[in-house]
């Protein structure tokens, strides 16, 4: 798993994949999806898929890839190497969502929450497998949200596939567990090899668990907050823990849509007649249209 | 020129966070 592509450009989104085994193009296959790094306030989130012919499901069970959450980082690495060696029949693909992509997606003007981002990423990976010629028949998906709605959404999108969405699917379906291993290993490596884009000198990487309720992580966030620029792009700005520290310790910044937000929460809409009423300063000298159109004004005082 | 109003006058670590590009 070469992460160099992501390491070079860790502010964007990155797709990594193995070669597609020829067997997967000739035989009916199953595919598992899982994620890694949904909860932390630091580092990327990774979506992973694994796929193999239905006839090889048993081989995965024998590998004992289930219960990946109980494994250490080193054990996960070892398991991944094992999975990667099964090139004859097992393929994988990953979508790495950088903290910057997560933050900008969640904070854009049109609502786009983490669930929607997650679903779209999963859908894109399934589509990638189909586009790569994998003869998919069964898809197994792990979820933290309501399973039925998500399953319905995927079934509508891929009506030809048999889709199963279940919480803790990684402990029920080995193909999901295999995907989970791939995703977790990718996230571990991405975090370990993270290159700070920002010229911050020697950044102390002792940030604890990276989870928002970890006091050590909160302390790291506060220590690495620049009052004008906020955090390094290693941080998910859209997490409320991160936002709270910014609100209290960074300088206020106002954007073009700030007034819009304030106005929309105020008393009520204006009467149509108010647009036709003469304004108080109509008799005041109006600058020539040349200046108004270009937002140029006379200066009375600096 | 920035597309936002920063309510502060003073030092900012611009070269640490921005790379000028033409």
């Amino acid at each position, binding site marked *: 798993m070469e992460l160099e592509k992501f390491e070079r450009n860790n502010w964007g989104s990155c797709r990594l994949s193995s070669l597609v085994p020829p067997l997967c193009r000739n035989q009916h296959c199953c595919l598992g999806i899982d994620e890694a790094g949904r909860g932390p306030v630091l580092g990327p989130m990774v979506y992973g898929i694994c796929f193999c012919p239905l006839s090889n499901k048993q081989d995965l069970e024998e590998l004992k890839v289930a219960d990946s959450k109980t494994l250490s980082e080193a054990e996960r690495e070892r398991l991944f190497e094992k999975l990667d060696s099964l090139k004859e029949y097992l393929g994988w693909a990953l979508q790495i969502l950088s903290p910057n992509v997560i933050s900008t997606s969640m904070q854009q003007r049109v609502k786009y929450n983490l669930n929607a981002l997650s679903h779209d990423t999963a859908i894109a990976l399934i589509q990638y497998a189909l586009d790569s010629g994998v003869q998919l028949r069964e898809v197994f998906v792990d979820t933290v949200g309501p399973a039925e709605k998500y399953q319905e959404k995927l079934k509508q999108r891929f009506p030809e596939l048999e889709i199963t969405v279940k919480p803790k699917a990684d402990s029920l379906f080995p193909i999901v567990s295999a995907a989970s291993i791939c995703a977790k290993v990718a996230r571990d490596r991405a975090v370990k090899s993270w290159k700070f884009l920002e010229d911050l000198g020697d950044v102390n990487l002792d940030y604890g668990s990276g989870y928002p309720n970890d006091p050590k992580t909160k302390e790291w966030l506060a220590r690495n907050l620049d009052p*004008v620029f906020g955090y390094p792009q290693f941080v998910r700005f859209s997490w409320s823990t991160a936002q709270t520290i910014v609100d209290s310790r960074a*300088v206020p910044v*106002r*954007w*073009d849509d*700030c*007034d819009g937000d304030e106005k929309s929460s105020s008393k009520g809409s204006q009467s149509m007649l108010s647009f036709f009423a003469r304004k108080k300063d109509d008799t005041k*000298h109006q*600058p*020539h*249209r*040349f*200046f*108004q*159109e*270009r*937002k*140029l*004004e*006379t*200066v*009375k*005082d*600096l | *020129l*920035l*597309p*936002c*109003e*920063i*309510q*502060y*006058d*003073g*030092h*900012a*670590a*611009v*070269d640490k966070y*921005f790379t000028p590009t033409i």
Partner: protein
Amino acid sequence: PDQWVLIARDSLLDLPKKPGDGALFTRLRNPSTGEGALFLFSSCAQQLFEIKVFKEDYHSWFVGQTVQHDGRLFFATPMDALFLILYYLIKAEKEQGKFQPVDQVVVDEAFPSSCILLQCTRAMQSLHHVTEEKEIGSKKFYKYNKEKTLKWLKKKVVQTVKALKSNNICVGGSVHSATFIRSKQMLDVTEEDYTRYAHGLISEYVPEELSADLLKY
């Protein structure tokens, strides 16, 4: 705040020949509104510049390694100092109606720097465009002349029309949002549209009554 961003000619940074003769920001009377406005004299008052500001909500500047909260962009554009002197000539005509030395006309307690206008050589050499002149001994006396002024202003309008055309400024009469700037000239724009637009621009620099007379002219 003690820092602003301004676009101006390089020559304004030239060191003056004598200390104290350098470029000077000062408030003078805007001839159209009668209110104070910021202007800039180059060193030795060789040239007068009007200060305009581009002002839009929600801007700040990065200047080197600093943030400047004030997101305005100032422009210093050269202007004919005669417009400002004209204001005082018209006022003197209304109040006294007689020939006077120009240094007795351009006096303004509220804007003491107005006397610096008299150092603008080019403007001083152009007074005859807007006045009748009398010379007694070595001293010159001036009296505002409306007809001559209208003739002079018409030339300004004609020059402005040329500049509007060569810079492809949209002068069409359609109603649109103030922030919508057409990139192409509308096809049905007439010479009258240009003239009215130019008259409007020149009117920014003359008293209202004179603007009305100029429009009729």
